[in-house]
């Protein structure tokens, strides 16, 4: 059995230069995520949640320390390899959905598969199955501006999971939707985690998300405050 953690952060620090001032977003942060987890990075604004998601998602590079995904050190990968890694192994769900406004729900969901050069017929089949899974099959031909916030977020989730990534990184996924929609979205993600074993890592300060998490990683001022694993 392979015991390599899915995600591994070793003494990671991220310092940004803002004008003449250096701002430390994350300081000496270490943690691991195992496959199948439903975990939450929580903490107040500015605590470093999004920075950690960006580092794990190969969108940003640490100033110090190492980030490993499936045992691979991201610092050793070039721009092209990192793009391929994001395309094939990571799914993203953003706070403000960030669907492409010129693509339909179906085209948005199949965007990653198109980047992977999956044949059109096969990707359409896979996308329709996933859209059905998230309850969006009937609205597949609508553009984002014809969908509600909750519907857009469902499409974003479909886009994140359709390529069977190793991990889905969700940055404040419930921040822009009403409570009922937030519950429905969380229920959907919980079900996908439970039934399909998809690993989810959230960043949030939404209590509803935290209530459903199996593990809570509390952050404060860019440092790990408390790692709480629930039963």
């Amino acid at each position, binding site marked *: 059995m392979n015991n390599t953690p899915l995600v591994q952060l070793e003494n990671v620090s991220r310092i940004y230069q803002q004008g003449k001032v250096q701002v430390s977003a994350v300081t000496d942060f270490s943690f691991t995520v195992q496959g199948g987890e439903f975990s939450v990075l929580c903490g107040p604004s500015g605590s470093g949640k999004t920075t950690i998601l*960006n580092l794990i*998602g190969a*969108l*940003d590079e640490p100033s110090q320390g190492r980030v490993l995904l499936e045992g691979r050190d991201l610092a050793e990968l070039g*721009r*092209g390899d990192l*793009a*391929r890694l*994001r*395309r*094939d192994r990571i799914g*993203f769900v*953003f706070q403000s959905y*960030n669907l*492409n*406004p*010129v*693509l339909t729900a179906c*085209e948005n969901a*199949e*965007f*990653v598969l*198109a*980047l*992977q050069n999956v044949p059109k017929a096969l990707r359409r089949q896979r996308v329709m199955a996933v859209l059905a899974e998230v309850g969006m099959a009937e609205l597949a031909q609508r553009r984002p501006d014809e969908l509600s916030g909750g519907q857009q977020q469902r499409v974003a989730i479909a*886009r994140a999971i359709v390529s069977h990534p190793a991990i889905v990184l969700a940055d404040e996924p419930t921040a822009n939707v009403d409570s009922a929609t937030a519950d429905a979205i969380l229920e959907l993600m919980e079900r996908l985690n439970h039934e399909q074993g998809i690993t989810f890592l959230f960043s949030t300060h939404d209590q509803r998300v935290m209530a459903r998490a199996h593990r809570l990683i509390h952050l404060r001022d860019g440092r790990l405050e408390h790692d709480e694993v629930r039963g």
Partner: protein
Amino acid sequence: MQLATMAWRTLMRNKRRSVITAFSVAFGVLLSVTFTASGDYAYTNMINTSAVMGLGHLSVEHPDYQDTPTLDKRLLDAKAVQEMALQIPGVTGAQVRIMGQAMFAGGAKSVGGAFIAIDPAQETPAHNIFLRTLIAGQCFSADEEHGVVVGAKMAEKLNLRLGKKLVFTMTDTDGELVSELARVSGIFKTGDDSVDGSVVILPLALVRKGLGYEPNAASLVAIFLDDHRKAESVRGMLARFWTQNKEIAVLTWQESQPDLAGLIGVDRLFNYLLQFLVGLVIAAGIMNTLLMSVMERRREFGIMMALGMMPGQVVRLVLLESCWLGILGLILGVIITTPWFLYMATVGIDFSGQIGEDYSAGGVLVDPVMKFRLYRESAMWIAGAVFSLTIVAGIFPAFKAGRTTPVENLKQG
């Protein structure tokens, strides 16, 4: 989802901006067609006019005739040359001619001038501007051995009318002065006073006899083509017939009329330069639009890169947008240019009020009516240049879009 479809939809997101930019491309097409088509028409007109003034699009002559056009430099068997030339595709006529200098006298007055001796049985107005512009009488016939056609200005100088006598004196192949008598059968007026006051058309047989030329000898064979642009290729074919013969040379109109060729060359260069500068201004406008569009969509590019899009694919996406802009601009360009082109190709603008009817350049009469003519390769060149310029204008914005990292882009908006 193909990148091309995505690029098109992105362009249509801001329809007004895209259409305005496409119109600037279309305006470039209009300007480019105007410059190029007026040039194509004017140059073709000048070259064809120059050809029918004596030397043709190609002239086959003695190799030294161009530098020292004396009457002893001649083709001994011009008839054979004429027959060979007429076999070549694209050749519409081949005329045997003797050209030289002579003194012309009528009554008590005399003037120096140039003569073109022609075979009236073979010459047609299509290949001879002087027969085309007769204002009195007609060309002498084949059995009219002593006929002559003079220019209106010379007729005025020498007090000549139809039927009047004209004596011309020239130097024969032995260097002796010989004179012949002819009667005016026709008077031409090309509109260029220098031509009308100095050129005389004489019968080939009379001049041959007077000069002591062999029965088939002549100064040159003027060859006419259905398209002046074929001059170089037809010259190649003709030259192959006489590779061993050092007494025969084939000259294109550029070589036999270097002044005209130089004038057209310089004018064409300025034309291209002007088009290039206009193109640069339009390209700067397109680049500005694309750059604005790229800067507005930085977060969008960040998302696409976060989802696994390669920087190269982002560059390609923006380049495809500029490609679509080029295609849209070309289509709009064709739509707005066609009516203007059709009007100018059929009616044109008459500048005779400004430049007169007898304006000449490079020794050739220029049509005072500005018209359009666009060769297929010119049209292809315009389409290619405008399209390429649009793509080039997209390169910087495209690299700008592909160069930033996903996290930098995600921080935008």
